């Protein structure tokens, strides 16, 4: 063999090896669909925001961190639990106060001191392999996870459940380790929840932590049709017996097939939606949204016009680290609040498409009805004593002002009705009031040297503002730091890729993130507020439980939390106590609530209509929430699709 032949042979062999490897990498999961089976009037294509699913053939959601897809249809279409709580209003007639009885036949029933809970289950529900769903499945779910570290609810069930038993095939009785009026929320889906396990499948498995559950036996109306062995798409097909599921009892899911596509870059998903290859997009950038809705009248957002985005029940805020001496005086926190300009924050972060909130409850779902609206008079009359003067800082019309700012660019897309503007842009926020802020800092012992504020100890008032590396929150933090710097406070933006880890251990000074998340459709605030109890605040450097990232402690706060713990989830007093919390928060301003986390979820009406929106707010359109399952019972094929 001459030298040339040797080199050619080597190159060809390498290519053959590579191509053989490619085929080998795929051969484990070989069921690919024929797209001709998916007529668009029977198929909905959904964007799933997950990246590449690293363990694509894994369908066991009862293992933590297994690398499987979650919002790839698995937790929307095949899993179920006792109740679901919608972030918006819920389907009329199928839910009450946004609560769906899903596998449960009724609401939870506690004993008087909340140490026991009884649940009645629906009858007539079957798993996709035809086995009846019964109380034994619920009991197994609790006992198996309690006994298995590495399952998602191992910690919760171990800490809270003393015993669980099926008193009859459709009744489950829990005895709890301590009084807990919110125990049922473990089985109540906001985004996810304690999904019920198929006992008849898992009891045959020796080690459930290494069990891939492929294909999954479904408790929802869809089963797995096929999936990409590279982890970028999943196809689900409607069960013939869909009516024997809790979702089917709400209504028939209309699509025969639902395809979830993930790992799509923003440009890619924008193009694919315009090309008719996506019906639902999880989110886009504000700019991409404005562009695509202007070009394609079939693409719709939550609001019929500007700002289009869906306000998630998550509140973006400037979070002060209370274990840092710089932020322990509420006058300082209020001064920093009054330095900010809501209009600038809205424009810089969302190009004006923000939904502002001055109070520590997101302006979304039913919260405007329960909190924002009723509190307007209180907020308008709210007064702060700066030490020199008394000011009323609230401006109830900032939302209207922002609407006028964007009207020249977006014209008729911007609502003109005052109520519509308040719903879309928020009720109001704090007026930028630099003199009042300076009075508050002076009262707190600060002095001004030129344009630099000095702390009481004579040191310059400097700190970092931690933001994620990109996105609207990054933009928001940048304008906040810039505004503070312009007014004599040396705030510097610190873009970090590990913000989540750092806020958990308190390794930040000011953090632009969210410390408030609610059910959205229900006024109970326990979802985030219970973890604010001072008993859970840890020492600096230790890991703080979610969501009191600011490590705020106040005995009055503890008292409110304990009152909420003492009443039922649906007790009307919950709103009263929630309002007490809002007022205490205003007094202390432990963090600065700014705006809802608006998500630019879009839907195309080219093939399907009936999507939820602000006027028909029966569900959250953000595609990775498992509550989105109800959407499939409400949509219908577009005429001519």
């Amino acid at each position, binding site marked *: 063999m001459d030298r040339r032949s040797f080199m050619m042979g080597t190159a060809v062999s390498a290519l053959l090896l590579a191509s053989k490897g490619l*085929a080998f990498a795929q051969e484990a999961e070989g069921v690919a669909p024929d*797209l001709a089976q998916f007529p668009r009037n029977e198929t909905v294509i959904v964007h799933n925001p997950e990246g590449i699913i690293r363990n694509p053939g894994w369908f066991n959601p009862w293992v933590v961190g297994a*690398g499987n897809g979650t919002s790839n249809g698995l937790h929307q279409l095949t899993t179920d639990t006792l109740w679901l709580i919608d972030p918006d209003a819920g389907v009329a007639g199928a839910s009450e106060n946004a609560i769906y009885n899903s596998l449960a036949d009724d609401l939870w029933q506690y004993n008087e001191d909340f140490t026991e809970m009884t649940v009645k289950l629906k009858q007539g529900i079957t798993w996709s392999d035809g086995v009846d769903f019964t109380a034994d499945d619920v009991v197994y779910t609790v006992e198996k996870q309690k006994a298995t570290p590495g399952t998602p*609810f191992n910690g919760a069930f171990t800490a809270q459940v003393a015993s669980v038993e099926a008193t009859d095939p459709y009744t489950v009785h829990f005895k709890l380790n301590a009084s807990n009026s919110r125990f049922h929320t*473990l089985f109540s889906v906001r985004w996810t929840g304690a999904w019920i396990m198929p006992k008849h499948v898992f009891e045959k498995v020796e080690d459930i932590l290494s069990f891939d559950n492929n294909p999954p036996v479904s408790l929802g109306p869809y089963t797995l049709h096929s999936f*990409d062995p590279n982890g970028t798409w999943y196809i689900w097909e409607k069960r013939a017996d869909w009516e024997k599921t809790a979702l089917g009892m709400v209504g028939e899911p209309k699509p025969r097939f639902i395809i979830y596509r993930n790992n799509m870059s923003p440009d*890619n998903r924008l193009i694919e939606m315009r090309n008719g290859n996506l019906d639902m997009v999880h989110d886009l950038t504000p700019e991409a949204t404005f562009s695509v809705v202007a070009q394609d009248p079939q693409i719709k957002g939550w609001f019929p016009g500007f700002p289009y985005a869906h306000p998630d029940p998550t509140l973006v805020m400037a979070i002060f680290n209370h274990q840092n001496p710089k932020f322990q005086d509420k006058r300082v926190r209020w001064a920093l609040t009054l330095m900010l300009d809501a209009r600038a924050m809205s424009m810089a972060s969302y190009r004006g498409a923000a939904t502002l909130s001055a109070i520590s409850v997101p302006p979304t779902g039913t919260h405007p009805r329960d909190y924002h609206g009723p509190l307007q008079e209180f907020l308008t009359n709210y007064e702060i004593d700066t030490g020199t003067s008394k000011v009323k800082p609230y401006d109830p019309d900032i939302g209207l002002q922002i609407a006028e700012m964007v009207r020249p660019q977006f014209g008729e897309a911007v609502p003109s009705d005052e109520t519509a503007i308040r719903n879309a842009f928020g009720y109001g926020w704090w007026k930028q009031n630099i003199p009042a802020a300076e009075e508050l800092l002076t009262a707190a012992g600060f002095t001004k040297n030129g344009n630099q504020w000095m702390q009481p100890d004579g040191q310059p008032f400097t700190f970092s503002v931690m933001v994620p590396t990109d996105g609207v929150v990054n933009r928001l933090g940048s304008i906040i730091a810039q505004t503070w710097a312009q007014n004599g406070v040396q705030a510097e933006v610190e873009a970090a890729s590990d913000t989540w880890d750092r806020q958990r251990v308190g390794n930040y000074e000011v953090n632009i993130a969210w410390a408030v998340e609610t059910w959205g459709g229900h006024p109970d605030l326990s979802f985030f507020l219970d973890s604010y109890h001072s008993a859970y605040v840890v020492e600096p450097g230790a890991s703080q439980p979610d969501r009191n990232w600011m490590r705020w402690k106040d005995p009055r706060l503890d008292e409110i939390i304990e009152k909420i713990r003492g009443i039922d989830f649906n007790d009307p007093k919950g709103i009263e106590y929630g309002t007490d919390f809002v007022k205490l928060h205003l007094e202390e301003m432990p963090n600065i609530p700014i705006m809802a986390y608006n998500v630019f979820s879009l839907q195309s009406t080219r093939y399907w209509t009936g999507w939820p929106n602000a006027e028909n707010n029966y569900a959250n359109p953000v595609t990775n929430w498992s509550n989105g399952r109800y959407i499939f019972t409400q949509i219908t094929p577009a005429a001519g699709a």
Partner: protein
Amino acid sequence: MHSYLWFVGKRILQLLAVIFCGVSATFLVTHLSPIDPVEQVLGRLSARSNLSPEAIASTRAALTELYGTGQPIVTQYFNFWMRLLRGDLGPSLLAFPTPSMELVARALPWTLGLLTTSTLITFIIGNLFGALAGYNPDNRFFQAFGIVAIAVQPIPYYVVAFILLVIFGFLWPVLPISGGFAMDVRPGLTLTYIGSILQHSILPALSLVLVGFGGWFLGMRALVSNIVNDDYVTYAELGGVSRRTIVDAYVIRNAMVPQLTALAMALGGVFSGTVITEQVFNYPGIGSLLIDGVNYGDYSLVLAVSTVSITAVALAIFIVDLLHPLLDPRVRTE
């Protein structure tokens, strides 16, 4: 022959030392990362649930035990080498308990297929045209080609990729812009599957070729420009040797020695993947796998990818070292 074997022996020792040092350095760097895989999992679990602080603490303890992250770093290092010698790089912590190498094996063929092909195409086009341009400096076609190469080379890769995406995905949507193969194709050694893979790889490969050929072209043109003035080329021309023979056997062959070295290095680097290509075209591969491993604090996966990459680069250099004395007689082994 004896001296060549001695040379090979020394290079093998160097190869093992490079791999050992590279893998150990990666182990150290990944384990000094502030990203804790347990906290990453907890973050994903608790961020969307209302787990009580007690439940979170209990889950943290269970995961630390399960993942073995609580062990001293020296113990982890020792265990790592023991496993590696058995060919086991441990379970991935972002896809627990799936072995890390399983994830690498799933992604690697895509990267190898795309990058090997595009690197070879780029190499051939760049060097062929570069050699002809160097030998024919007054040819207008090659002058124009040189201007294009110089103009395209500095354009950031992501700009070129995005332009291709917009042109062929939106303005003239004739090529797939997403994924490795179509949803309606069954994976296997069939013409349909291979055709679908090729169709899906056109845009990613084209973007890599467009950005990559300029470097080879300019390098080869410069090499050939020098060689054509050497005495032996002039002598061959005066001796009436045909132009084709001069270009093929005298000029290109001599100029190819450093280019082949660079090719071997480039092919070794293929194992590191191309993150931006994978992101823009949603193409499967090892680059985004590595990024995921870093972001999730999955040092087991990062080590698996890095070990493959380090070994590949070291092997590529090793092979070049071994071939060099054979390719170029002027290089001696002693």
